[in-house]
């Protein structure tokens, strides 16, 4: 189960990173903080860097070193126009998928209703036959 959760997270992480950068630019650590939220999700922080470098290579994000008021400079990431486009498309697709999962949850109820409807129909037909 642990492994399954990891896999699922990894797939969605890329989309989540694009989503975070869609609204504002982030440096690595602030991105991690935003992603993990109120600590509901434990994230191995380092895993974002391979993803960030891949996204940069694909031209979806750009980066820039900016001096920090305290400590070493930070590398800020932001979406390119292509990145924004990609996020919108992926996000739409993701929403469709989540709706699908919700539907799967509802399914038993629907099926039950349909069965009952069929039963009623059969009963009616029998009555009609009589």
């Amino acid at each position, binding site marked *: 189960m642990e492994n399954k959760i990891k896999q699922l997270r990894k797939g969605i992480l890329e989309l989540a990173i694009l989503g975070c950068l869609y609204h504002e630019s982030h440096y690595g*650590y602030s991105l991690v903080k935003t992603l993990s939220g109120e600590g509901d999700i434990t994230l*191995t*922080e*380092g895993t974002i*860097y391979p993803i960030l470098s891949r996204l940069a290579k694909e031209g979806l994000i750009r980066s820039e070193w900016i001096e920090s008021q305290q*400590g*070493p400079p*930070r*590398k800020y990431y932001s979406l390119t126009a292509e990145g924004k486009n990609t996020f919108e498309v992926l996000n739409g697709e993701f929403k469709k998928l989540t709706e699908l999962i919700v539907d799967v949850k509802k399914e038993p109820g629907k099926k039950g209703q349909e069965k009952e409807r069929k039963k009623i129909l059969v009963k009616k037909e029998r009555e009609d036959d009589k």
Partner: protein
Amino acid sequence: MTNNFSPSVEKIVNDYLKRLKLHLKGFPEKDKEELVREVYSHIYESFVTDSTGDEIDRILNVLNKLGEPTEVVSSRMSTAMVSMGKQRKLPLYILAGVTIALFGVPLGIGGFAFLFGILITVVALIFSYYITAFSLVVGGWLGLIASIIKIADPAILDRYDIETMTFFSDPTLSGIVGIIVSIICAALGFFMFWLGKYMMRGIRFLFSLPMEKVKEARERRRLKMVRSKYD
């Protein structure tokens, strides 16, 4: 690096970055430096934010949350695939395997002999496979040439006392059959070479798997040692 940490914390951070650099071998120098700088920045930000406990606990906690260098460089499984793509030489793996068997794994002489035996077997298998493929190709080409000569002028072969496969009494028909057999031989040889590429990839992959595990175990042991040193 700029001096933002106390000496002991700085030491731990530098140790981590050194290990990170080891995992970045083969990357372009510029990318390497940039990622190291970025991870340093990450460590700093994380260290500053967390203010519970003493310094050493904090920095170890920060590095723990960041994950091992293998995770910063690439996600778990894909590292094996990446190094495969980079065309690492098989001999290097064998050498590394023997070295680890000698110094890294506490198996003793018996274990070493066992591993060495397996390695020798694998090498011998690969060697004989390629020799077979090579001789099929060479044999195929030579047979082809001989068959063509046989059709053109059977007397030449007789003059040099070269015996060729004689399937039929008619030299032309025999030559044609010879050509077909030769081409099949050569094609089989080439096919074996082509197949060998995948076999090597598979073997390389098999070798890289245990090595990843050994590497991970070493990293873990190292971190534990660092931890016990500062506790």
